[in-house]
């Protein structure tokens, strides 16, 4: 328990300005309670600011403090409500950066509200002058607080049961071009992709209801395509209908229309906000709908290492908020993603218990207490020739989305879809047979390409395409690091 440094009340509460450290926001002896919410920040103090004072200030500004002493603190159990920074370590191999561990009492937060949690944790503090930059790296959410959230509307297991698809990643593609197609032409792309062998097609993040194609028109043509492809293959098929709109009223209206048409899945964008996401998750649970979340906007604050927040925190919040799908990186594709960091994201979305693992960026052990699992989605610059690497890095419980890698196939969209599906199935077969599929991957694909023309053409078209750029978001600890 907390043996707080004894505070002399008379000195502590005399009017004026006082160091945050002395106001009770720095307690190096504090032992976090099992019910505490813990946040880990990367702090870059301004020149001349002591790291512990900067970290205490963050604890203060993200909980009860203001810039000066207020006597009204004494009307409350203020020791309890003060967030407590209890540890500050220099970041390995980084100049003037510090990791600060801050514990928050559970009573500081409203149950079941990401908005309330984030209003404290990433509220005012990021603009605070005493720090040059600030990044929220990770959070520990106590089970007591976790259980106040619904969690994913459907979850990986039930999604698979509804889709009747097991033992392999699901396959998807985003309709391209993402803007400009009429409803009729759009549905054509959807039908071709699904009939060719994909499980899902997808609206892109910015396709809502525009002059070239209004939402209702898109929904009608897309559902014609989905149902026709289902009859053509005997398989359950789906298309993520993006219901993102300017108001909740309009989002609900679009979701209801999707349901009326028999869609099994709808989609929202991260930019609609945490409360809107939670509302849509409740709607999705109630209406037997899978909820896909596109992480539009996240890189504005998750990519740079010194400021903003790490995507693993978004993964945590979105699992709590209740989405079923979340784009979480490809490792080998065109978008940002260090393999170890991506593993940390995928574990956070999919595992029931995530141990501390500094090399994958997981600072805190997290018990998910049977909250449903989120299906990670790998999308952006991936193609059939990388199938062995994708399965190796991402595992089988994910959606692999080949947009350009399907629609850009030289023999057409159906052929592109078939190439991806054959590549996937032959790789899963090889993996299950115990083959060293990561190293033998190219041969396994070539063997299938001998009887599958579309796969042959895909491998030929994209044979050497890769995106080998250095990641900006990497681990601060080498794999041998142990937890302190």
């Amino acid at each position, binding site marked *: 328990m907390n043996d707080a440094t004894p505070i002399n009340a008379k000195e502590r509460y005399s009017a004026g300005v006082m160091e945050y450290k002395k106001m009770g926001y720095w307690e190096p002896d504090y032992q976090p309670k099992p019910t505490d919410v813990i946040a880990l920040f990367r702090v870059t103090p301004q020149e001349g600011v002591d790291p512990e004072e900067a970290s205490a200030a963050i604890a203060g500004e993200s909980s009860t403090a203001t810039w000066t002493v207020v006597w009204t603190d004494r009307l409350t159990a203020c020791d309890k409500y003060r967030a407590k920074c209890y540890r500050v370590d220099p970041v390995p191999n980084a100049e003037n950066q510090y990791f600060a561990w801050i514990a928050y009492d559970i009573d500081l937060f409203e149950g079941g509200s990401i908005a309330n949690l984030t209003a404290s944790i990433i509220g005012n503090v990021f603009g605070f002058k005493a720090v040059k930059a600030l990044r929220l790296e990770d959070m520990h959410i106590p089970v007591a607080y976790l259980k106040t959230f619904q969690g994913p509307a459907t979850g990986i297991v039930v999604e698979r049961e509804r889709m009747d698809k097991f033992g392999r990643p699901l396959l998807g593609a985003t309709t391209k071009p993402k803007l400009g197609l009429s409803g009729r032409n759009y549905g054509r792309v959807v039908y071709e992709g699904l009939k060719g062998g994909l499980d899902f097609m997808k609206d892109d993040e910015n396709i809502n209801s525009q002059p070239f194609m209004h939402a209702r028109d898109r929904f*009608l043509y897309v559902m014609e395509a989905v149902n026709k492809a289902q009859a053509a293959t005997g398989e359950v098929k789906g298309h993520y209908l993006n219901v993102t709109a300017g108001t909740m009223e309009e989002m609900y209206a679009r979701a209801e229309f999707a349901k009326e*048409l028999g869609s099994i899945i709808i989609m929202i964008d991260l930019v609609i906000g945490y409360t809107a996401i939670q509302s849509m998750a409740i709607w999705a649970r109630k209406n037997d709908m899978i909820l896909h979340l596109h992480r539009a906007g996240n890189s504005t604050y998750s990519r740079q290492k010194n400021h903003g927040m790490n995507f693993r925190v978004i993964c945590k919040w979105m699992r709590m908020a209740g989405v079923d799908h979340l784009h979480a990186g490809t490792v080998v594709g065109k978008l940002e993603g260090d393999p170890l960091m991506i593993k940390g994201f995928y574990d956070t979305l999919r595992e029931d218990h995530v141990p501390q693992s500094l090399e994958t960026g997981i600072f805190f052990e997290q018990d998910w207490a049977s909250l449903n699992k989120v299906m990670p989605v790998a999308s952006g610059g991936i193609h059939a020739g990388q199938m062995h690497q994708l399965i190796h890095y991402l595992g089988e419980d994910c959606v692999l989305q080949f947009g350009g890698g399907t629609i850009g196939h030289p023999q057409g969209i159906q052929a592109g879809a078939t190439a991806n599906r054959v590549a996937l199935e032959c790789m*899963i*077969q090889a993996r299950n047979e115990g083959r060293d599929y990561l190293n033998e991957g190219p041969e396994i694909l070539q063997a299938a390409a001998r009887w599958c023309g579309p796969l042959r053409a895909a491998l030929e078209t994209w044979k050497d395409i890769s995106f080998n750029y250095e990641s900006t978001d990497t681990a601060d600890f080498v794999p041998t690091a142990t937890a302190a």
Partner: protein
Amino acid sequence: MRVTQGTFSFLPDFTDEQITAQAQYCLDNKWAVNLEYTDDPHPRNTYWEMWGIPMFDIPDAAGVMMELAACRKIHAGSKYIRLTAFDATHGWESIRLSFITDRPINEPGFMIERQERGGRNMAYTTRAYIADKPEGERYTG
């Protein structure tokens, strides 16, 4: 048409050796393997008939293949047969792998029925052509 339900339907039909390898993979993961058959290929026909109960305590895929041989003796040609593996682990407690081992020679496919409703709204029904015949009399002729 070819019904492409199951994990490996886009690959050429598996040989017995290939089925054995997949069954052994399931058993090595401590999953219980089950055989199921049906002559109703509708994509939402969840409950295929069970060939006995799941094989909870068989360590060797040879045992699964013996059951498959017995199942085939009665149903091959007139039914779809699939191999399904159940994982009882907490947090999953469902199927981990499911693939078709046998299918009828001719697969007539599905009719899509469109019921025109208000506006341009459409209600869709997927109906297997073969489902017009009673169960047990499909794919027999």
